[in-house]
């Protein structure tokens, strides 16, 4: 999902920065609120960031014969809500842009939008819906992480299709082309991410299987 440095036209690069900036600012506010209300949650937020750090470093083989990486943003979105993930995801993307030449500074706005904003918000929405539908916690977490992961890659496909429409079939054709590269490769990896996220939540929960005791989910509702 990393759009490489210099590969978005200037107007698009600026536009995605403008679109992402308010979310990242809200992420900073959200982080401060979480830490002010629950100083003990600092470590949990760090764990959510660490999970994204690990998963986005792991490029995995897929059935298409290509490699891609999960995003790991679903875990934090389920635990703390999607807002704070905009901040954590930006830190990860900045690390990769500066030290790994992966993604880039000019494409940071667009990459933040797909991985640190759309992914977490979709994960959070799926989590909420799944719980309302009465699905078990594990299934809800798995679905949230997997669908959020896919949403990130579909967003990247749309961003690229918008910047590089097909001469004949325009946006639609280009979107099919990019989604063919990203989304199909991502399908099995998204399932793997869903499973890993359930394992991580299990390991992090103080009482096995009780996400509420993890601290934030219920607290956040009351706050």
């Amino acid at each position, binding site marked *: 999902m990393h759009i490489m440095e*210099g590969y978005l036209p200037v107007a698009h690069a600026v536009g995605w920065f403008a679109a992402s900036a308010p979310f990242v600012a809200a992420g900073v506010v959200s982080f401060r609120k979480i830490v002010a209300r629950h100083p003990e949650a600092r470590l949990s937020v760090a764990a959510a960031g660490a999970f994204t750090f690990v998963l986005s470093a792991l490029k995995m083989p897929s059935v298409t014969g290509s490699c891609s990486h999960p995003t790991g943003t679903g875990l934090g979105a389920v635990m703390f809500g999607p807002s704070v993930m905009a901040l954590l995801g930006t830190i990860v993307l900045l690390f990769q842009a500066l*030290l*790994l030449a992966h993604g880039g500074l000019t494409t940071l706005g667009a990459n933040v939008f797909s991985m640190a904003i759309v992914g977490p918000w979709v994960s959070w929405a799926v989590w909420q819906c799944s719980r309302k539908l009465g699905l078990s916690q594990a299934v809800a977490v798995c679905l949230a992480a997997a669908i959020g992961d896919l949403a990130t890659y579909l967003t990247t496909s749309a961003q690229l299709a918008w910047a590089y429409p097909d001469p004949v079939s325009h946006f639609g054709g280009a979107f099919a082309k990019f989604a063919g*590269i990203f989304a199909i490769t991502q399908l099995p990896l998204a399932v*793997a991410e869903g499973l890993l996220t359930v394992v991580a939540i299990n390991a992090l929960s103080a009482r096995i299987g009780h996400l509420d005791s993890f601290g934030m989910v219920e607290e956040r509702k009351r706050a």
Partner: protein
Amino acid sequence: MKKYSSVILLLVACLIIVIPLVIPAFGGEFAGTDDRATQAIASLKPGYKPWFEPLWVPPSKEIESLLFALQAALGAGLLGYVIGRRHEAQRRNVDH
């Protein structure tokens, strides 16, 4: 959720990752999708030159994998620390 289910989930995740590697029908170059997207851009808009270069590029594949490993290690280390602390805190609560 019972404890052993984590082990099963990890095994299934491993299977998902390993299957493309061992079943020849799924074989390929296993290039990164980011690079394939860059190639797709080249076919949609031939002659496109990126207008900005990365400030710093790892000088070799080895250095790049060093930094990726560092990224994963930092994340895994921190994650393991938090999990360890939580379980220790839980154990003490149970003891007292």
